[in-house]
């Protein structure tokens, strides 16, 4: 067979075209990248209503499409956001708020004081701090279209802090008709007054959600500072892609198909660290504090010495190494986290690097431990929870404790935690969980600080002395006094061991180097200010 030059040339051109075809098509498939930012968040947005849900991702969604009366700046100080002016009466019992100009809903109607009142009334039914306001309020009502008041039975110095809380559920202002929905009925209208609008048409639950710049949003004049100040959106659109597999998400970030990855698989960090197109950035400097909730109602941890044993047993660095590299780990000895205004060193003598298993074993014996089963809730579809549960079980078994893991998925965990019965009746002994460090300073907003037994959060810790101190928190006027009160609370808390800390982790997010302007705050990753070159 003779091969002519013509046929060879033709074959060469055809081959070259075929080889380049995918690249040509691939370039055609890339979105107009300067117009949209694609983000992969730490989970799937399953609940849209940020006023009733305690999920951080729902709060993130809320911060995009809704606005808040006050917002925290980078020093965690509340600043007016929707509020233009505000004041408090001489007796410190009546707060008056006047909305700033330019506030409008995505449906084109103006924001009014009635919307704010309805939103506050709905929110106080659900949020811990809000319930304190509800208990103290004699009246929450509007005076005119831009003015509303909150009148209290007695002064509440932390009212503004509570309204500005970042511990979900946060107070996002909704339209009156949405806010008049019972707090048990999730609002899914997604119409807010925030810097982004929610694109319902492009919403693909479980797959992707699209947020468009709200062209009608009027930002404040002050410079952007944390979540406060100007909210200027510098991109046309932000798309939240729900990529369930971390490896796939990482690969998509490497190729530029996404711009931001919130949960970076820690074992794959080295892959990203050498890549000049990708930057690792710690947005939440305080990180997450991980801890164990202990069941006060059942053996063995209804015994104080057994709880002390657990406190001495945990090697925080080892516990945190189950899911974080050492450079992103911190030990935690203060009840109030690592960076809040209330951290202190009161009654922290229990802490020992590496833990103290000998002391723990001794304490279990003193507690009269007789081999009772200790059930540790292991949430298998959240990697760090699963890993740390295994670490705790292993550590307990090494000192002779009959520890058993109870694997469950997130969907079933609350049903398990609700069970106050013994482990043989489906109950539990230890539940590993976490909170953002900010929430460790939000005493009134975070239910983990309660120790009122049956009414407390899971574990149902109970200590009257501590509760008496806790009750004073809302009445204390200055930061210094609260810091002094925090010392006392911490002393008592570690005395009766309301919980056991595992450590803290400051996990970085990964972003394309071309994506800049990310604001670093706890809980929420603001989508305003970021831009893509």
């Amino acid at each position, binding site marked *: 067979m003779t091969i002519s030059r013509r046929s060879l040339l033709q074959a060469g051109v055809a081959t070259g075209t075929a080889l380049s075809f*995918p*690249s040509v*098509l*691939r370039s*055609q*498939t890339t979105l107009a990248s300067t117009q949209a930012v694609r983000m992969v968040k730490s989970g*799937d947005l*399953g*609940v*849209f209503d940020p006023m*009733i*849900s*305690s*999920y951080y991702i729902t709060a993130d969604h809320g911060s995009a499409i809704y606005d808040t009366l006050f917002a925290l700046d980078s020093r965690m100080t509340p600043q007016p956001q929707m509020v233009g002016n505000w004041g408090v009466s001489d007796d410190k019992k009546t707060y008056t708020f006047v909305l700033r100009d330019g506030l409008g809903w995505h449906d084109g109607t103006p924001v009014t004081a009635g919307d704010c009142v309805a939103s506050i009334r709905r929110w106080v039914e*659900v949020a811990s701090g809000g319930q304190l306001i509800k208990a103290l309020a004699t009246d929450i009502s509007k005076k005119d279209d831009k003015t509303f008041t909150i009148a209290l039975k007695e002064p509440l110095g932390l009212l503004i802090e509570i309204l500005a809380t970042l511990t*979900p559920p946060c107070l996002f202002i909704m339209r009156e008709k949405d806010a008049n929905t*019972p*707090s*048990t*009925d*999730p609002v*899914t209208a997604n119409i807010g007054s925030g810097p982004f609008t929610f694109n319902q048409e492009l919403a*693909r*639950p*479980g*797959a*992707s959600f699209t947020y468009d710049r709200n062209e009608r949003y009027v930002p404040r004049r002050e410079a952007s500072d944390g979540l406060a100040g100007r909210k200027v959106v510098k991109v046309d659109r932000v798309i939240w*892609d729900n*990529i*369930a*597999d971390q*490896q*796939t998400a990482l*690969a*998509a970030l*490497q*190729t530029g*198909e996404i711009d931001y990855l919130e949960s970076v698989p820690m074992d794959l960090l080295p892959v990203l660290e050498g890549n000049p197109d990708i930057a690792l950035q710690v947005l939440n400097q305080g990180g997450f504090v991980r801890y164990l909730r202990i069941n006060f109602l059942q053996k063995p941890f209804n015994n104080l010495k057994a709880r002390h044993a657990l406190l001495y047993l945990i090697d925080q660095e080892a516990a945190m190494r189950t899911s974080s590299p050492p450079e992103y780990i911190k030990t935690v000895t203060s009840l109030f986290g690592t960076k809040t205004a209330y951290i202190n060193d009161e009654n922290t003598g229990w802490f020992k690097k590496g833990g103290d298993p000998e002391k723990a074993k001794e304490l279990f014996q003193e507690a009269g431990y007789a081999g009772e089963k200790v059930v540790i809730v292991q949430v298998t*579809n959240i990697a760090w929870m699963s890993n740390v549960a295994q670490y705790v079980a292993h550590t307990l078994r090494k000192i002779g404790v009959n520890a058993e893991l109870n694997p*469950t*998925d*997130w*969907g*079933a*965990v*609350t*049903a*398990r*935690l*609700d069970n106050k019965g013994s482990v043989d009746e489906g109950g539990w002994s230890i539940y590993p*969980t976490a909170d953002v460090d900010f929430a460790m300073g939000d005493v009134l907003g*975070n*239910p983990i600080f309660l120790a009122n037994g049956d009414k407390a*959060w*899971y574990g149902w810790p109970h200590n009257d002395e501590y509760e008496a101190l806790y009750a004073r928190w809302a009445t204390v006027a200055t930061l210094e006094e609260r810091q002094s009160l925090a010392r006392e609370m911490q002393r008592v808390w570690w005395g009766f061991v309301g919980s056991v800390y595992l450590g803290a982790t400051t996990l970085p997010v990964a972003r394309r180097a071309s994506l800049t302007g990310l604001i670093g705050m706890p809980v929420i990753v603001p989508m305003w200010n970021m831009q893509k070159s």
Partner: protein
Amino acid sequence: MAAYILRRMLSTVAVMAMVGIFVFLLLRLAPGDPAAIIAGDKATPQMIASIREQLGLNDPLPVQFIGWVRDLVGGDFGTSIFAGRPVLELIAQRLEPTLSLSILTIIVSVTMGVSFGILAAWQAGGLLDRILTAFATLGFSVPVFVVGFLAIYLFAIRTQWLPVQGYQPVDDGFGTWLVHMILPTVTLSIPYIAFIARIARASMLEVLSEDYMRTAAAKGASSYSMLFHHALKNAGVPILTVIGLSFAGLVGGVVLTETVFNIPGIGRLVVDAINKRDYPIIQGVLILVSGLYVLINLAVDLSYTLVDPRIRY
């Protein structure tokens, strides 16, 4: 034939009804509470109880079941607890990616699987047969996600020829759609090619050893005529069965492939719904998929008449 089809259609309804009852009860009796998931783990028990009440989950089981059946009969598959949207709308959103992946996979799998099976049978015992058999064994043994991640590494990250993930609707451009489907289709096709090739080979070998094949050869029939006019039709019944079952499995959702390549298909929809205990979606998808499964089986049974004129209903 018409009576047969009618009988099978009626049995489809019966199967869907049984699946519906089973799934309904299983969901309500299994651990997990959508109200608790909505509220989050910091919610008070009172809040969770109120949400349960709001969702109607505290109603007696028979009341919930009758309400659900009544809506179903009226064509209302319910509303997603979390998304607040009709279940049928959410399923419809996921149908195109699933059907795209399924149809492309079955086309590639059948074309290559049947071809490999025929070739392997024709060259039974030879080098080609051994190579194809080894490929089939490997294709069946290596997990889909391993192949998927390797493919992503080679063709997306290293060479950047193809995208890593995602689905683009056909409306956005045929080329865009196709290029996003290449890697998932190839990945998912491998085990199906292996499976179909093995069945095709076994079936063809059985037929090739029949007397009438020897007679055809003695009469001077060409290899092509023997393989495709005489053998393949007679070997077709088991091959069609396998193709039908494969397609039914594909349409039901291939979660691993959808997860690796981030394709928003039916498989991911139902797995996400299970994780969140979104009962209406789980119920809706499983009923529809069970009905589809039965209908595909019916189509396979009817297709036998095309290859074997002795089969009549």
